[in-house]
């Protein structure tokens, strides 16, 4: 425990091969909305948690099925009969607002590859449109947390929304 505290103190002094925590997303003025702010509790050192830390409930109003049903209504698919995965990661801030969206596209065997730019963009926009993410509290303090959605694509259609 102490060793962690020591290395943690040195974290910002030296250039690192890895981000402070795996999956940390840095603000990029070319990609990100300048109005989106991190606002997690100072008492947690403004640390951005992961979706699985703290509350064990899925953090979307109406549960995951609400996302799946909204997606069905949008009828997003590709004319190309492609297979693979599209993941969108993002940060949910202490107010339940989302930002810092990053997309990863993969072949069925998880090799990075473009599947269909239009489909990817539509799924990115769909993810950005989701407004039911609930703010997370840890020990009574509001925090920011990373969330992701992975869309499994089969024959050009979304067959599963994960996790």
């Amino acid at each position, binding site marked *: 425990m102490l060793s962690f505290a020591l290395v943690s103190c040195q974290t910002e002094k030296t250039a690192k091969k*890895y981000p402070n925590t795996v999956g940390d997303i840095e603000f990029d003025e070319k990609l990100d909305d300048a109005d989106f702010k991190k606002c997690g509790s100072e008492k947690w050192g403004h640390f951005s948690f992961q979706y699985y830390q703290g509350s064990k409930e899925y953090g979307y109003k109406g549960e995951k099925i609400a996302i799946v049903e909204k997606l069905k209504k949008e009828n997003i698919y590709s004319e190309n009969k492609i297979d693979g995965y599209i993941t969108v990661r993002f940060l949910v801030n202490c107010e339940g607002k989302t930002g810092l969206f990053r997309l990863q596209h993969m072949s069925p065997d998880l090799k990075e590859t473009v599947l269909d730019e239009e489909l990817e963009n539509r799924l990115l926009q769909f993810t950005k449109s989701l407004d039911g993410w609930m703010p997370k509290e840890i020990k009574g303090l509001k925090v920011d947390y990373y969330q992701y959605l*992975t869309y499994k694509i089969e024959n050009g259609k979304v067959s599963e929304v994960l996790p």
Partner: protein
Amino acid sequence: MEKFQRYYLSFLLLIVYTNTIAQVNCNAVEGENCKKACELYNWASDLQGFAESQEGFDKAIELCPDFSLAYMEKAVPYLKNGDFVTWKILIDKAVALDPQMHLGYRGWTKFQFLRDYKGAIQDLDQLKKYYPGDLGRSQNGDYNLDVVRAMSYSALGQKEKAAGIIEKLLAARGYVKGMFDHYQLGVTYFELGRYDKALENFEKQSKEYNFAENIYFKSKVSKIRNKDYLDLKMLALQTYDEGKTMKDVYTHHFNKVYRKEIEEL
């Protein structure tokens, strides 16, 4: 200052509590460098997900390139955080070095995190060559990995095969049941239209561990048979609200049912 330290300690405890820690007895590891790598691995596993941890695994791999656990543990935070490309590169290395140790985990993960049913079956079939009897448990402890094979076949439409695998397991001497075995078998029979067998399994599940999804399916069988199903439906909703549902920290269970689906029954 004191207050900050208290929060900082809570924070560390929370992170460590959340992580799966797989400590190894390094005295059993042969070779000085590999012993050092093992100790580094134990240290880094405690700090899962942090930069220092990932660097620790890198050092361990440098010292002992065949130490498969270092690749495996280095991969875990990428999996949990949704970076499947990086996870796959690392977990494949672990499997290549020691398939007997890591095939089960990779197979389970393909099923649970990616719904890659074919990939899961491939890995678990390969694992059978090493463990023809008992494949062991899923990482979350809920299932025997043969039940994971069965659920994968079920998802691919091979429901008779899926039911056969679970029936065989349940009949096997010394088999330790998983938390949701009868439920998953019941749902498979339900999907086959074999409602007697489905109900039989939902009843068995009720006696061992009951939860909202199981009651929902009992209610569905009653509705199909034109019997009173509303009491069961209400009980399913009540049980759901009490939090007795299929839960997983990182993902959703196969055949999970949502509250809205119960409401709409």
